[in-house]
């Protein structure tokens, strides 16, 4: 009785310690976001006040109205949306198909093909930046949104991750389907994808957010104002207006992360609610 109480106390002491650590880590990660959000409602003078003061002295929305009046925010969001959605969709389709083929339609080259894919993940962006630029220029795709999307599509991350998830699907399920003459496409859509839904959804969100946040590549190839993405628009404030635009930058940044953040929250729910429990008894 006594010992169990001690154990309980020790247990909860450990829990409190780890929760404190977790809270600290969360604060470190959240601080920039909270700082961004608060600063977007501050006057410029307020932002540069010394000391750590998060909440604005005077709550203003002028940063937002300035940004909205000077920039065509709906167009910027639309461009980003187009690039991120297209990138995500094409990548998901190719990656899901590739992963399925690697796992469930194996041949003697499958292993090698997979490692070939994986190797591409280790090639740094700076190495392929120039060849990609030249290729796009030959294709006449510089200064187009398709030009932003195209090089992003060749990426094995999603193949790798979805393949891992699919490997968790018991082989016997696919064999049962093969015996019932289920075509591969039906097998993928009706059996494999429902069973790997959490991984597929989270991967889709990850790809979308990644593409949304892409800065350097669009900066390199987009010239026209009407083709700018929302992340690119940030450069107008940091570059041309220098220190004057910090409140505006914060407002723009807040607007730019709103959508990915919203998607992420949806995805989180879908990932956590693991509806799946196997009918397989291994």
């Amino acid at each position, binding site marked *: 009785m006594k010992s169990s109480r001690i154990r309980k106390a020790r247990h909860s002491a450990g829990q409190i310690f780890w929760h404190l650590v977790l809270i600290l880590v969360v604060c470190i990660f959240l601080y920039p976001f909270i700082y961004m959000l608060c600063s977007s409602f501050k006057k410029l003078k307020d932002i540069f006040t010394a000391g750590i003061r998060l909440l604005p002295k005077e709550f203003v929305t002028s940063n937002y109205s300035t940004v909205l009046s000077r920039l065509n925010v709906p167009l910027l969001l639309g461009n980003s949306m187009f690039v991120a959605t297209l990138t995500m969709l094409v990548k998901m389709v190719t990656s899901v198909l590739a992963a399925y083929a690697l796992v469930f339609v194996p041949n003697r080259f499958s292993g090698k093909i997979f490692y070939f894919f994986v190797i591409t993940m280790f090639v740094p962006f700076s190495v392929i930046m120039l060849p990609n630029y030249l290729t796009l220029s030959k294709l006449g795709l510089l200064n187009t949104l398709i030009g932003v999307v195209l090089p992003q599509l060749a990426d094995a991350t999603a193949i790798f991750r979805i393949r891992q998830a699919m490997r968790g699907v018991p082989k*016997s399920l696919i064999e049962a389907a093969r015996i019932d003459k*289920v075509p591969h496409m039906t097998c993928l859509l*009706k059996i494999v994808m429902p069973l790997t839904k959490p991984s597929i959804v989270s991967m889709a969100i990850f790809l979308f957010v990644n593409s949304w946040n892409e800065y350097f590549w669009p900066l390199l190839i987009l010239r026209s104002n009407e083709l700018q993405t929302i992340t690119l628009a940030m450069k107008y404030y940091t570059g041309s207006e220098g220190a004057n635009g910090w409140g505006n930058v914060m407002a723009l940044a807040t607007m730019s992360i709103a959508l990915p953040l919203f998607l992420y929250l949806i995805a989180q729910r879908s990932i956590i609610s693991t509806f799946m429990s196997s009918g397989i008894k291994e």
Partner: protein
Amino acid sequence: MAENDIVFEHVYKSYDGKVNVIDDLNLTIPSGQRMILLGPSGCGKSTILRMIAGLESITGGDLYMGGQRMNDVEPGDRNVAMVFQNYALYPHMTVKRNIQFGMEIAKVPKEERDKQTDWALEILNLTDYKDRLPRQLSGGQRQRVALCRALVKKAPYFLLDEPLSNLDAQLRTAARAELVKIHEVYRPTFIYVTHDQIEAMTVGERIVILDKSIIQQLGSPDEIYNRPANVFVAQFIGSPSMNICEATVEDGRLCIGGESTPIPEKWRVLIGDRKKVKFGIRPEHVEFTRGEGDFPIQVTYMENHGNQLVLAFNIEGNPMMGTLDPFYKVEADLYLDIKWDKIHFFDADTDKNVGYPEGVASFTHFDPSSFVTLQK
């Protein structure tokens, strides 16, 4: 060749091109029969089943099903139904969907699908569970759903890969009867893989015993039990397994250690001029006499199983087991009393059965053609 025969002709299977998992398999599974593939793990029995299903390629030789060569036919085109060891139920589909999925693919009209599903659910007492997900079912119920799914296909070949191995002992007994019942519904060619000898004896019409990729014996449960082709089969079938001890034959006497007993004439003929044999006796055929008998024994251990008394004893240092009536009173000075129509002799070198004398009781349906089918 009958309608739904399965014939293996010189079939080989190798994964790495070096070791043969299946070595020159010649086997005919007659149409409509319940054939059991029995053997210890790694003997190749599941590989044979998977070759029939088309899930495993054939390295050499020919496989015929219903007279057609099947080596390169896709699993979906072989018209087989299969029950997997882990049931392979789709976890995200209800019982009903699981059963109907194959029919949906085959474009069976909805009315017919529902009819078939209800029929199968009825047979296996699952009607109340049709809207549940597999995870909401017990192991026995999942196993029955898997049977339902295979049953509605009404395929001429019904393959089962250790379907009962995940069930507890009690459920297994009930499920064995269910399997026979299902086979009787439309008598498909039934191929059943197991490592459980009780399942093999109770479900099988014929049993193939495999060891180390080679068929050791093919026969009815009776033949396998009463006329084991070799020491492996003799010891594999039966629980506790058959007592085998090495013995010598001198001047018509069976000698174990320093003790000996005369061998009846009918056995002497079969033993021939062998000097060394392996003597086999099943635990249930062990009988004792007091004071005098064939071989003196020393009791080492006893277990009361309620329905029987299991006795471990020695004959001249050779450990043996006997199962006796639970009320048998074990005393000192016991002798093994050999009933000469209930023993077995095997060649000491080849382990093959030497055969049985004419007129030995309870072996009336002995069929020599199914006797030793060792292929090497």
